[in-house]
């Protein structure tokens, strides 16, 4: 089990360590099966091009899930997440290569409240583009 952050050690403005997540076509296939979201734009290049996308794109909810993974790994307990929301702005484009693409996530502490709750804003990018906006979470550290 990773070391859990201690509320009294935290400061507003503090940055959390950056993390890079690899996303390949296999990732999308697995996520489609696990989530039940079989929208064609997440697995068929032909369909993706037809609707004007540059290539197959990742499920927005998968990118959101990577953010949740980032937050819960930091918190050490997935149940510590009390609120988490994102806006889907740009798609994560996933080429049909062995390396796929990457999603980079960093976090910053924006607020600490009197109830041991931490507000964290995430910056989530892929290929230098912000793919999520207003990615915000409240984490309750007991």
């Amino acid at each position: 089990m990773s070391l859990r952050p201690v509320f009294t050690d935290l400061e507003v403005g503090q940055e959390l360590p950056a993390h890079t997540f690899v996303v390949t076509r296999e990732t999308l296939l697995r996520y489609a099966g696990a989530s039940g979201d079989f929208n064609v734009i997440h697995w068929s290049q032909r369909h993706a091009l037809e609707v004007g996308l540059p290539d197959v794109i990742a499920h927005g909810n998968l990118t959101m899930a990577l953010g949740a993974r980032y937050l819960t790994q930091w918190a050490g307990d997935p149940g510590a997440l009390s609120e988490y929301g994102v806006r889907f702005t740009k798609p994560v484009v996933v080429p049909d290569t062995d390396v796929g693409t990457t999603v980079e996530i960093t976090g910053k502490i924006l607020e600490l409240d009197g109830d041991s709750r931490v507000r964290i804003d995430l910056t989530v990018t892929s290929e230098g583009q912000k793919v999520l906006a207003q990615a915000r979470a409240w984490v309750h550290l007991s």
Partner: protein
Amino acid sequence: MPLDTGFIGRIYPATQPYVVSRAKIAEFADAVGDDSPVYRDVEAAAALGYPDVIAPPTFATIVTLEAAYAVVHDPALGLDWTRVVHGDQRYVYDRPLRAGDEITVVVTVESIRSMAGNDMIVLRGDVATVQGEHALTSYTLLVARSAADSV
């Protein structure tokens, strides 16, 4: 044509119960690349005070997305689902879902508005166990792009 704002506040019937299984939790955790033992090992979950393995935070998408689709496809609402994109998503948690939970979703149309020809609808999904214990609330913003923008 803008959506009928008379749908605001409409509550859809609860979805069929869905049983959260250890196998599905592990499959979902694998799919998002999360190797945390609390998703796979009952003892690791117990060490954090949980009675069984818990599900990753966005696991609820399995039930909430399907529940939202049922509303999107409601012919009375008249949303052109071929133009619908997922705008944003938020979850507010009471407790993590866990193996053995039997859950349903009740969807409420939270808001409807039109902006620059785009229809924007917020669906609230309340996820609770069949025993009535509330686990989380999902807020999904769906945007139906204006027909003029479509390809």
